[in-house]
């Protein structure tokens, strides 16, 4: 019940952004420009081809634009609010997470929930606009739409746990910026943020199947555009669910260990 009572913790990051109109304008501008650029690029690439890597022009553009919109679901700016774990470790304010009756794990999860709900509102609005303008195609059938939504939810859960893992690393290494950068980049590249994974060489795609990143975005978007057929959807959803369970168990274990590491500076 403490979860319900601490609902305000969920809106920390969105509220911080709402208090900073310049930041919201910047985000809006970036989204619009990104969508235009990305749609143009893929149109341009497909000028002389009708299909590549099993994706048609429309599929590729839809995928790319949806990936841009999904960026709102993937990363909200905690850094500006000095609310990232690494900043808390740096300033020593992480102690307060352990002084409250709300367990740090629950606070972290609540906060992420709020961010994703807020991001989803943005993404949905953007989706509606793009659909109206015709930049993205609607899903082929209601079944596809349904499967997509389930896959997206699972993907978000996987993503949350991956980000949580990155945050938890901060409890162990103070100077871990390099490792984190590698993971963040790998995470973006292998999720299909930069380009659908289907375009990458075979070895790259095989490598991706062993990592959870492609489950966060590539799977749901591929289902949406139809690159993954409905008949294969069940298998993909199962893999996503598997990652959720695995990562959840691992991060839960890490939370317990992390608590022992909150030995901030000072004597």
């Amino acid at each position, binding site marked *: 019940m403490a979860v319900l009572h601490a609902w*305000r913790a969920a809106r920390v990051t969105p509220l911080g952004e709402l208090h900073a109109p310049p930041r919201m304008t910047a985000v809006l501008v970036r989204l619009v420009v990104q969508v235009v650029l990305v749609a143009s690029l893929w149109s341009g690439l497909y000028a002389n081809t009708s299909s590549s890597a099993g994706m048609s022009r429309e599929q590729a553009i839809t995928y790319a634009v949806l990936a841009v919109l999904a960026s709102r679901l993937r990363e909200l700016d905690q850094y500006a*609010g000095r609310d990232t774990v690494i900043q808390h470790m740096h300033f*020593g304010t992480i*102690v*307060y997470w352990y002084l409250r*009756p709300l367990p740090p794990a629950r606070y972290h999860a609540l906060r992420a929930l709020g961010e994703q709900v807020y991001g989803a509102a943005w993404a949905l609005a953007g989706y509606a606009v793009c659909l109206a303008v015709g930049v993205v195609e609607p899903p082929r059938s209601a079944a596809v739409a349904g499967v997509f939504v389930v896959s997206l939810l699972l993907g978000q859960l996987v993503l949350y746990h991956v980000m949580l893992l990155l945050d938890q690393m901060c409890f162990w290494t103070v100077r871990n910026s390099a490792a984190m950068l590698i993971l963040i980049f790998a995470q973006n590249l292998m999720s299909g943020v930069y380009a659908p994974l289907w375009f990458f060489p075979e070895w790259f795609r095989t490598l991706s199947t062993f990592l959870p990143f492609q489950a966060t975005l590539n799977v749901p978007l591929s289902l949406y555009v139809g690159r993954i057929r409905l008949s294969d959807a069940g298998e993909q959803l199962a893999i996503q669910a598997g990652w959720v369970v695995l990562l959840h168990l691992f991060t839960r274990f890490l939370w317990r260990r992390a608590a*022992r590491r909150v030995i901030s500076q000072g004597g």
Partner: protein
Amino acid sequence: MIGSIEVRGLSRTFNTTVRRPGFTGALRSLVNPERVVKHAVSDISFDVAPGELLALLGPNGAGKSTTIKILTGILTPTSGEARVAGVVPYEERERNARNIGAVFGQRTQLWWDLPVKESFAILRDIYDVPKAEHAARLKEFDEILELSAFWDTRVRHLSLGQRVRCDLAAALLHDPMVVFLDEPTIGMDVVVKEQVREFLRHQVEQRGRTVLLTTHDMTEVERLAERVVLINHGRLVLDGTLDEIRRKYGSTWQVRATLADAHTDVVPPPGITVLRQDGPQVVFGPDGADAPTVHQALKAVIERYEVTGVAIDEADLEDVMRAAYVHAGPAGEGA
């Protein structure tokens, strides 16, 4: 007992690895690291009664922060036991969290990007404080701390003094019985310091909260603390009321005299020694175990010399504590 702190034989050691110097040393450290055991806290025992304000003193690195971290439930002791308001903090962290409030000097628990009031609202939610109670308490804090002037401002725009006042309010929002303050007034100006002290006094006297205060500011100790615990090198070195300590270590005094004749050969009376001499200005101090009191010394100096000006200085708390630190010695024994 409600709102009391009990510490029995608390010890905490840390295992750290020491890096060997040089390149080969670094390689060896990777394979065969040298482990060093650091005794942050060794066998500390003390009590704080409900409604008491205890000052926890000690030089930097003495183990004060470690002690507070154990009492707030963040660290588990290697041996010994502690109880805060009847709860063992490191075993029942969440239950303990409801009973305590904490302010750690330079670190804020407020949300950087949000208005202060919003941080208060979040904390109210987390601690399940009823709305009416919350409003009443904020009003009470506002009276002394003058928060309403800036509680709509985002935390990033607050000055240090404003922020610490807000942190104090945030720590007490849920009406904790026990409050831990780790150098709360460090770096603040005199006016705000006084405000904070008044606030703390009010909380202890009117509301009966138990406060454990760490500080380097002796004025603060003088104005607020009834009892003092001195920790050095992880060991408890002193535990007593201010009066007791003064009586034990506050025997230093100074008599500053301006002699009429600058060239007088100054041979001080028995039990008195010359600490400094600068022309006609002479500073006398106590000498040995049979030194007189400051008033007797004053009388002796005036009787022996012709003085045009004289002043006496009784030991202030800083001198007393310095004497106590020195007396305690690096080994930590003796008190």
